[in-house]
């Protein structure tokens, strides 16, 4: 099966690969996995506690091209957004942007879960209750 051009682009030139200090109180870390294919994805963001704006995002994904592209795109999209805006990103947006075929939809789900998990982790560090619907649920 052929990957779409955008997937190939993100795969060959992944944006924002790397990591942020996990212990930093302003850094939220989300580590999620897709058991069906054995992919693991780590997404981290540095969030300004005053403005709630995501100032930096990094990812590291061990998995297929679509999983890498989905997480790469997710880091691009969340940067500069507020926490609320980032939480509004849906996996279907990623599917559309990357033209993912049905068998790769779970990769986009993984990326959405990673965003939620990272923000959830940051909120926890700041003593904010994470509402049920914002938890990584897939």
């Amino acid at each position, binding site marked *: 099966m052929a990957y779409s051009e955008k997937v190939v682009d993100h795969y060959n030139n992944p944006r924002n690969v790397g990591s942020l200090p996990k212990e930093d109180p302003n850094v939220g870390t989300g*580590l999620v*996995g897709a*058991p069906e*294919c*054995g992919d*693991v994805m780590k997404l981290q963001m540095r969030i300004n506690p005053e403005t709630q704006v995501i100032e930096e995002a990094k990812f590291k994904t061990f998995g297929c091209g679509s999983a890498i592209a989905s997480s790469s795109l997710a880091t691009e999209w969340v940067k500069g957004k507020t926490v609320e805006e980032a939480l509004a990103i849906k996996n279907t947006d990623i599917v559309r942007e990357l033209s993912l075929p049905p068998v790769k939809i779970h990769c986009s789900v993984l990326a959405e879960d990673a965003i939620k998990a990272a923000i959830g982790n940051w909120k926890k560090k700041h003593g904010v209750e994470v509402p049920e619907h914002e938890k*990584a649920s897939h």
Partner: protein
Amino acid sequence: MSTQLPITNPPLVCWNCHERTIGTHFCPGCGKLLQLPQGSDYFAMFELPRKLWIEMDALEQKFLQLSWKLHPDNFVSATEQEREISLKRSSELNDAYRTLRDPIARVEYLLAIEGMRKNGENKQQAPPELLEEVFELNESLDELREAKAEGSDTASLRQRLEAAEKSFGEKLNEVDGALQSKAQEWDDAIDAGANVADRGKIMAQLNELLNRRSYIRNLVVNVQKELL
């Protein structure tokens, strides 16, 4: 409480003689090849209970026997409908055999038909410890990969990769061992007529082991790629 799960196919109406039939493959009334009844499954196709231990020789015998009976060659001069059924049944039979023959695919299939594992989605997240562990193992493999790309001392690198392969392989064996004993537990529970809650518990554990296995298998495959 029932002591045994049903192993026969659900009854259906024969497409040819319109009699209700409980035949698995051929209508006992008119002898025509039957469509596979809805709600039937691979275990029922082989007239096996939904248990995880399967005698391989018997499975193969049954497969050969059935493929011979269902084979499209037997229906060249039959009606188009019969030819179609034969083709469909033969391909289903091949899928069934391929699935039941493989102990891992067999567990995956059992969990799928029992509603524990849905295709393409998985409701529960893997435990965080497992993800941490898998992530770290992947990172260590990544470091070796980078070192390889930089052309560092290949002999010592190869040693480290081989050590990683050995350790991942051991983990895979551990998981396979755990899966095997959990499968035994499932069969015992079926024999003992365990209730839905108890069966559900075992299935959840089987599912967790399968998940762990797919992460570790990826690691094994990836490290082997580096060693080629």
